[in-house]
């Protein structure tokens, strides 16, 4: 019998990227592509494996300057990881966050609870990252997206996310230049929904 000493319990923190410089650059370009082309599903680099998408975004964009809000499920699994790898402050209130990491539409707070920026500084608005492979909040609906980044002749069509979510995205866009920017990450690709996106729910 070998009773494990208390300090021998498993406290290991999963590793970050094997090549932090190269992979964060590739992840950034994926996010940039996604936000510059709203509604387009952009493939993230294979090199992020085995880091899941939400953590990959955090490793790329979050540091001591960015207060981060995590939903309960993400917090339970990744709070220690993000504190160690990003050194980012974790905040309890969504409105204090520069970045929010959410696992599934079901756990997404109302978008109005995130900071939308201020008229003189709309760039201070939050960026909300949602893992769309997480728990759903309702049946997916079909939407038609237009706006800057979308060719006028070819609106982008998505069948993703519940109607209540898209209604919030519409309200978010109505406050332009204020509003939060969304990044939907999932196995099918990463999709950017900046505040400029105009949504028509089918």
């Amino acid at each position, binding site marked *: 019998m070998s009773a494990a000493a208390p300090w021998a319990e498993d406290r290991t923190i999963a590793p970050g990227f094997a090549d*932090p*410089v*190269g992979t*964060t*650059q*590739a992840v*950034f*370009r994926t*996010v*940039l592509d996604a*936000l*510059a*082309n709203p509604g387009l599903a952009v493939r993230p680099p294979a090199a992020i494996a085995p880091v899941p998408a939400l953590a990959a975004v955090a490793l*790329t*964009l*979050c*540091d001591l*300057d*960015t207060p981060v809000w995590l939903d309960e499920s993400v917090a339970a699994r990744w709070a220690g990881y993000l504190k160690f790898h990003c050194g980012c402050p974790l905040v309890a209130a969504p409105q204090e966050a520069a970045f929010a990491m959410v696992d599934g539409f079901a756990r997404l707070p109302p978008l109005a609870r995130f900071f939308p920026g201020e*008229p*003189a*500084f*709309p*760039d201070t*608005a939050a*960026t909300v990252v949602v893992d769309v492979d997480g728990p759903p909040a309702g049946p997916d609906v079909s939407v038609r997206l237009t*706006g*800057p*980044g*979308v*060719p*006028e002749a070819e609106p982008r069509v998505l069948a993703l996310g519940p109607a209540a979510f898209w209604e919030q995205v519409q309200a978010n866009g109505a406050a*332009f*230049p204020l509003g939060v*920017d969304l990044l939907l990450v999932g196995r099918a690709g990463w999709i950017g929904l*900046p*505040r*400029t996106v105009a949504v028509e729910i089918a």
Partner: protein
Amino acid sequence: MTAGYNFAYLDEQTKRMIRRAILKAVAVPGYQVPFASREMPLPFGWGTGGIQVTASILGHADILKVIDQGADDTTNAVSIRRFFARVAGVATTTRTAAATIIQTRHRIPETPLRAGQIMVFQVPIPEPLRWLEPRESENRKSHAMADYGAMHVKLYEDIVRYGQIATSYDYPVRVAGRYLMAPSPIPKFDNPKLDRSPALMLFGAGREKRIYAIPPHTPVVSLDFEDHPFSLQRWTEACSQCGDTASFLDEILLDDQGNRRFVCSDTDHCAARQAAGAGGAP
């Protein structure tokens, strides 16, 4: 290859800060995002804003082109291209079509850009209202309220004084119907290339510490009046090297007798036409 430096010169913390600014710039097209501009190994005014943006987006797979007034072979362009070849080890090119990132001072290439390319502009004065109102605090309010009457008055005064809008470069534009934006000192000849371009346009002002952007396929309108519509300058001459009459031409004085010659400002465009057999105007 990149010994002694982090990849692309900047440290990772700085890149993250600039990357966050770029993402917000893309989300609010035409709005100037403040960022903590760093000192670079060349002085402000030599393209430090553009260099910081390029350094933050650049990856191993990118192919970089750098132009200065359309030319690949001028001091600024050569220095910046060599800088990135040295600190990032990336491939460089002079061919517009082959490049994934094009850093530019004051021109947009004649060759149409394609989706997936990124233009990085070096910007001296990002604030279009600066010469009308020097106070940053007031201009910030004007942008917040989309109050751009002063710029229209300025263009109107041009018409009263000269009979036409005399602004020929850094011609103010409205991005996606909202923000007034300085397109950097590109000739107004290039303004139409900003409108609904398939390429992403990023603007970096190092001394002024601002980053702004135009996403692809975004409407960009040059300010004008119904009875004085925006118009482009035209030349009666053709390029003396390749004979082109449609590209932006530089005027070169040849002697003290006033003899002059015109050549394409875009050296890649001109060289490609010559290689294809186009001859110069006599």
